[in-house]
């Protein structure tokens, strides 16, 4: 590992000044589970900025009006242990509780998972279907970007030089709604997704018809994908409409444009996009019914 400086700013403003003073080779440290691994693999930085002293970056709070706020440096285990997340955002439990190991979950963060911008990241699909947004701080103040618009390519996001992700905001779930995330990995833990999928639905008051639906898939394109056609295929359909669900799956398969690598093949990933989309939709409907 090459030598670098370390700073632990106490505020967003202090972090922004450190960022603007740096020459660009800066590593933002939250849980370190991606950054430190990358440094060991040869990534070179001049400055490591540890976000964990910044209150906004470590806060985890919920408000009925504004929803859930997840500080970018909040570890996964804090998120899935939070009672509000357990009761209102089970899809966030799904994704945060299967990243890496318990050891990784005690360090790794949703913010880091976003900023690392791996196509196979496990938290973006769930945040996307829940309508989450990314709160980004920069020299010119704060801006919000929809989660599905945050990613621009493998390892690439909309973050500009001098900016950093402060928190992720997730709206309060509607009544009669449910969301679900799952992934496929060859082992039962400790793997990168071959493919993953999340779905959210809002049902009518008697819980028989889908009023709103969002589907997102990952690891099958350069970025996580919000599949608008999949959601559209479900809206207005009965919860047990197999044809509608199959149409959504077909939309996911059609949108997937994966690569073959040591983790999976193109054919396998396209196929899994459909399989996981169906399982995610069914899981989301089930949760909405139980809500």
């Amino acid at each position, binding site marked *: 590992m090459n030598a670098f*400086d370390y700073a632990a700013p106490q505020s967003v403003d202090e972090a922004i000044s450190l960022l603007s003073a740096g020459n660009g080779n800066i590593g933002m440290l939250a849980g370190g*589970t991606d950054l430190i691994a990358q440094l060991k693999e040869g990534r070179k930085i001049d400055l*490591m900025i540890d976000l964990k002293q910044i209150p906004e970056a470590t806060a985890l709070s919920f408000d009925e009006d504004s929803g859930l706020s997840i500080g970018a440096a909040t570890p996964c285990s804090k998120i899935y242990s939070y009672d509000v997340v357990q009761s209102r955002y089970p899809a966030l439990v799904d994704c945060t509780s299967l990243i890496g190991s*318990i*050891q990784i979950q005690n*360090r790794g963060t949703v913010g880091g998972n976003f900023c690392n911008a791996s196509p196979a990241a496990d938290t973006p699909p769930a945040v996307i279907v829940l309508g989450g947004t990314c709160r980004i701080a920069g020299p010119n103040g704060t801006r919000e970007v929809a989660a599905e618009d945050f990613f621009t390519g493998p390892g690439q996001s909309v973050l500009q030089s001098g900016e950093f992700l402060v928190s992720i905001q997730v709206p309060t779930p509607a009544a009669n709604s449910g969301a679900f995330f799952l992934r496929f990995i060859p082992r039962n833990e400790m793997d990168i997704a071959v493919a993953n999928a999340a779905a959210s639905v809002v049902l009518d008051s008697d819980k028989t018809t889908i009023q709103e639906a969002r589907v997102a898939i990952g690891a099958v394109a350069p970025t996580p994908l919000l599949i608008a056609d999949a959601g559209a295929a479900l809206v207005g359909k009965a919860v047990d409409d197999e044809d509608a669900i199959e149409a959504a799956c077909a939309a996911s398969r059609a949108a997937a444009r994966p690569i073959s690598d040591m983790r999976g093949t193109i054919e396998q990933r396209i196929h899994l996009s459909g399989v996981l989309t169906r399982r995610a939709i069914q899981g989301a409907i089930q949760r909405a019914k139980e809500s």
Partner: protein
Amino acid sequence: MPGKVHVTTTINGESVEFLCEPRQTILEVLRDQLDLTGTKEGCSNGNCGACSILVNGEVIDSCLMMGVEAEGQEITTIEGVASADGLHPLQQKFLEHAALQCGICTPGFIVAAKALLDQESDPSEERIRLYLAGNLCRCTGYDKIVRAVQDAASEMAE
């Protein structure tokens, strides 16, 4: 070259100060500077759990935490698991159940299992397997490890 950072932390109940370069992981500091070599390095990127330590009671991979991050934290390593009264029940049960062969993964497993049993007194087999999935063992096939943790949990519950 950037200077070294002065870090004050608590390790196994003792206040400890050390100087480290920002690029040194806490694993490197523990092993190479503080002589706490019971924490092992198996993969160096968070995939084997051999370097598991507790930070404020939560198990983490020490290969993926920088030394400078230890400032103000409470760290427990395998060397801090047994007490003057003797072995921790997990350590005793690992011995009784033959839950170690080569022993290189054992400190990590015991530290991780301690984190589990400190939080949950009666974990199911499934829960134990999930909790310990970040600790690789290549010798035992895990059977005796899981049984040792189950037995330790029962004994600690008594």
